[in-house]
């Protein structure tokens, strides 16, 4: 019988229920699911455990992995090939090409995608915006202007949590918004030195500095959900955060379009954060191999895609899943994804480990967060950015 030991970091209520669906389906198909959840640090703890498991010669069968980390593990020679399932299920046809690319190692399939989170969302408190006559901004200039207005009205314009990954999240949306998709690709995906050192980048940092002016002074260390609560409670007007923030709004009984609004961050493009499962090489243990295949098949199958993403707030990775049951924000997200996939503005989020491997991504974050939390000049930040990236290569 197919068996699978699944290492993942989806542990909180909503997430856990979502995975439980998969577990149910797996069991229905006669599989034995061993759960190995490890939360913490956005998967860091799970990665730590994974390394120990691999080194001790006992890797889990399937592991929640994403972005270039998949290829990194592949290079260590520990991933299994699931091309036969992928081909059988015609993944190539139903997945956006960019996203499919993340699932492949050396041309063959080695991971199965679960969902797409959009990172570059900006959330707004509907009432505040209406009261102050502000529409969702579409450019950073608009945003700045609106923010000034709010500030004058005594409202914190931007709710933000001063954690490195949140700083990076804002940063990448600014890079995308001010530099455009092409610049984003060059700077944060290809790590092009010229782009990193360009005037655009200086402007980006300038904007970061401006944004900090819109954040209340108690932001450092704040959890993202507390920032969300600020928007909910009318203490702040906006928050820039991935679509998981929607879960907080919904959990508090807020309605999209009524109590809060969702929109893409100023500028054009779609930053995605795709969760996926990589299959580890389990040798010739037939049960485990069967488990991997079954798991891969179920993950990408429409029924799981639908239920899972309904639970989690993200959107299905398949383009052929009906969105009838999804809310407006999700529909918007899906629409944008399909559109942006065509013009090359569907881009991996660097802040969430989709664009870069750990080392350069971390190096960039170090600079971003250092800049955001000090009085460093933009020029200095750009210089440090170049150094750090060079150092991390």
């Amino acid at each position, binding site marked *: 019988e197919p068996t699978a030991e699944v290492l993942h970091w989806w542990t909180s209520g909503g997430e856990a229920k979502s995975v439980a669906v998969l577990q149910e389906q797996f069991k229905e198909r006669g599989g034995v699911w061993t759960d190995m959840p490890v939360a913490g640090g956005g998967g860091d703890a799970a990665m730590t455990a994974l390394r120990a498991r691999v*080194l001790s010669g006992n890797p889990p069968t399937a592991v929640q992995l994403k972005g270039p980390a998949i290829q990194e593990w592949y290079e260590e020679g520990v991933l299994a090939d699931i091309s036969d399932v992928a081909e059988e299920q015609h993944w190539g046809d139903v997945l956006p090409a960019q996203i499919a690319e993340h699932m492949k190692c050396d041309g063959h399939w080695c991971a199965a995608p679960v969902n797409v989170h959009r990172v570059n969302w900006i959330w707004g408190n509907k009432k505040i915006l209406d009261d102050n006559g502000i529409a969702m901004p579409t450019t950073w200039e608009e945003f700045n202007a609106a923010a000034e207005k709010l500030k004058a009205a005594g409202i914190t314009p931007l709710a933000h949590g001063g954690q490195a990954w949140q700083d990076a999240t804002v940063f990448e949306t600014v890079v995308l918004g001010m530099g455009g998709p092409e610049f984003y690709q060059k700077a944060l995906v290809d790590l092009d030195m010229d782009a990193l050192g360009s005037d655009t980048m200086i402007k980006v940092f300038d904007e970061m500095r401006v944004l900090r002016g819109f954040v209340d002074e*108690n932001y450092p260390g704040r959890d993202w959900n507390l920032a969300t609560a600020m928007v909910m409670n009318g203490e702040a007007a906006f928050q820039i955060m991935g679509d998981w923030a929607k879960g907080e709004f919904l959990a508090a009984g807020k309605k999209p379009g009524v109590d809060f609004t969702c929109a893409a961050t100023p500028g054009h493009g779609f930053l995605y954060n795709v969760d996926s499962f990589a299959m580890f090489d389990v040798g010739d243990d037939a049960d485990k191999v069967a488990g991997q295949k079954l798991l891969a098949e179920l993950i990408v199958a429409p029924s799981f895609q639908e239920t899972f993403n309904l639970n989690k707030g993200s959107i299905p990775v398949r383009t052929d899943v009906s969105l009838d049951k999804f809310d407006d924000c999700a529909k918007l997200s899906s629409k944008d994804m399909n559109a942006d996939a065509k013009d090359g503005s569907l881009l991996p989020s660097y802040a969430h480990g989709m664009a870069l491997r750990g080392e350069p991504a971390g190096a960039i974050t170090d600079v971003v967060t250092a800049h955001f939390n000090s009085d460093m000049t933009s020029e200095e930040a750009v210089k440090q950015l170049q150094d750090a990236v060079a150092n991390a290569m």
Partner: protein
Amino acid sequence: MSNLLERWVPKVVLAPTFVAVLIFVYGFIGWTAWISLTKSKIMPRYEIDGFDQYTKLFATPRWDTAMNNLYLFGGLFIVISMVLGLMLAIFLDQKIRTEGVIRTIYLYPMALSMIVTGTAWKWILNPQHGIEAMVQGWGFAGFRFDWLVNPDMAIYTIVLAGVWQSSGFVMALFLAGLRSVDGEIIKAAQVDGIPNWRIYTAIIIPSMAPIFLSAFIVLSHLAIKSFDLVVALTGGGPGYATDLPATYMYAMAFSRGNLGQAASSAMIMMAVVFAIVVPYLYSELRAKHD
């Protein structure tokens, strides 16, 4: 014959520990040293590459911050915990009727996972929710307590929470030490007209010198390994203002998949520890020999 055996007993007793330490400490340090010379990424690789990792390490501003923080945090944390722990132990040693309850209160922070207490501290220290807001609410509008969000002061909040968490244990350690001092000697001092505080400073505490060594080692260990504390309280922030070598190392090894870098930072950290601890150990063990 049995005599010979007997002379070997102490060594035989120590042997397992010794072997374990050789393998699991010094073997692993050797392994780390090796890895620090390689280009290991997410997993160890064993091809020697040279001292590149060290060069990179020293070029990283974040590492500088981390090391400086370690000195500052370590120094304050150890000294304050020691002083506070000793003080509380002495207080508790005054035939306090509710000793059991108070002792447990002082100790409990050790029992709680910092992942969660960190959140509580974060709220307490947060100017918007915590003490500052509370005191301002009492009418002291000018009151400021914003260390947590001030990059220059945030490290002191780590000290605060660290002391909160560990001083209770140090107290317990000292309490055990205090309780082992012969009561007759204290009586003699009392009759000699020595005031209580002098009895502690001049007679009891000197005879607890070995316990200080224990406390020092435990606290240094905690200082160096403070990881949860930072992660939970400040996440290393604002920026990376409160980064410590342990968080740096963890970030390198596990978040960023740069084992070589992590290994080199571990080696540097151990070298520093060695430089600080060895002289102390030397003097301490020497003195105890006669």
